[in-house]
């Protein structure tokens, strides 16, 4: 079964064993697998960290070890990332349940966001300028 999925590749000696004629479905499988592994790890260790982000780091590590991004993974991932903003529309519509809160604190919220964003940008630029003069 495993050889059927991976095909006849020199496993695990070859650095690019992830390449070959694989379908994007394998890519989706791998994304879900890393999400699952991340979630299991987080649950087992009781970490207050999202499992999806641990999965992200796991996949990143796998890519570093593999030394490249295989095409069958790039295609489904590219589509998901291209339409990432569509994916959080359902959650965003949940603002409807916070309508009273937005009406009473909405203006303050926007001012706070503006102050915090400007402050962050200023701190970041100062860090980069300090780093440049010291090096």
């Amino acid at each position, binding site marked *: 079964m495993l050889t059927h999925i991976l095909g006849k590749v020199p496993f695990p000696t070859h650095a690019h064993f992830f390449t070959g004629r694989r379908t994007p479905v394998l890519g989706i499988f791998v994304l879900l697998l890393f999400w699952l592994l991340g979630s299991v790890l987080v649950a087992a260790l009781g970490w207050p960290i999202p499992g999806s982000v641990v999965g992200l780091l796991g996949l990143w590590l796998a890519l570093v070890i593999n030394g490249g991004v295989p095409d069958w993974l790039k295609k489904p991932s590219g589509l998901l990332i291209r339409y*990432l903003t569509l994916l959080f529309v359902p959650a*965003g*519509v949940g603002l409807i349940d916070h309508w009273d809160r937005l009406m009473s604190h909405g203006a303050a919220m926007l001012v706070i966001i503006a102050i*915090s964003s400007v402050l962050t940008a200023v701190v970041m630029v100062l860090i980069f300028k300090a780093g440049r003069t010291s090096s």
Partner: protein
Amino acid sequence: MTDAIRMLLALVGTIGFYLLAEQLYIKLHRSPLVHPVLVSIFGLIGMLTWLDWDYATYQQDTLFIHFLLGPATVALAIPLYEQMALVRKMAVPLLIAALVGALVAGASAALLSALWTGDQLLSLSLIAKSVTTPIAMDISAVSGGSPSLTAGIVLFTGAVGCLLIPLVLRLMRVHDDAIHGFVLGLTAHGFGTAQAFDRSVTCGAFAGLAMSLTGVISAFVIPVTPLADWVRYIAGL
């Protein structure tokens, strides 16, 4: 109306609204104020109110779209991998900058809100304001905020950042596209990254890197800091 038809209507409506909003966005020269996600969220809120649908039902019906956020978050490993390869030599200073930036962005907004509004849920939801939405919603849930409220806050942050950050950078005489992109991506996540790519490829790549790093670092660091406890304490005063 049967359940199946209502579910399909919710799915078709959501995707249809988004695709229409995307066309509008292109027509209006990609202004962050008419970003398709903002237009479709407020359009759908209008539709739900008009049709008298409750959100819980709509949320259930569009679970399929929401579910895809999981694999999409994992997929962010790919741009992260590609951008890290570009900046290998600068990795450590950039990691430090991203860590400080992520903490300042989250703590300043949440603490200021706790002091000003005293609204605990709003303040906790502001902690992840500069983080890319899928990760931000998870951080918000972990910190005791509301994922939906955070989704909205993150979008507002993106739009506000795209309007203000270029002004700040001009005033501070930042001419380096790499720094410009990094600051924009850190504070304004995906919105900032899209704007950075309009400036130059270097600017966009650094913005994308900053966005990914901020997301990952925030997810690991924010839940283990006492920030949420401080926010609860100050909001309760």
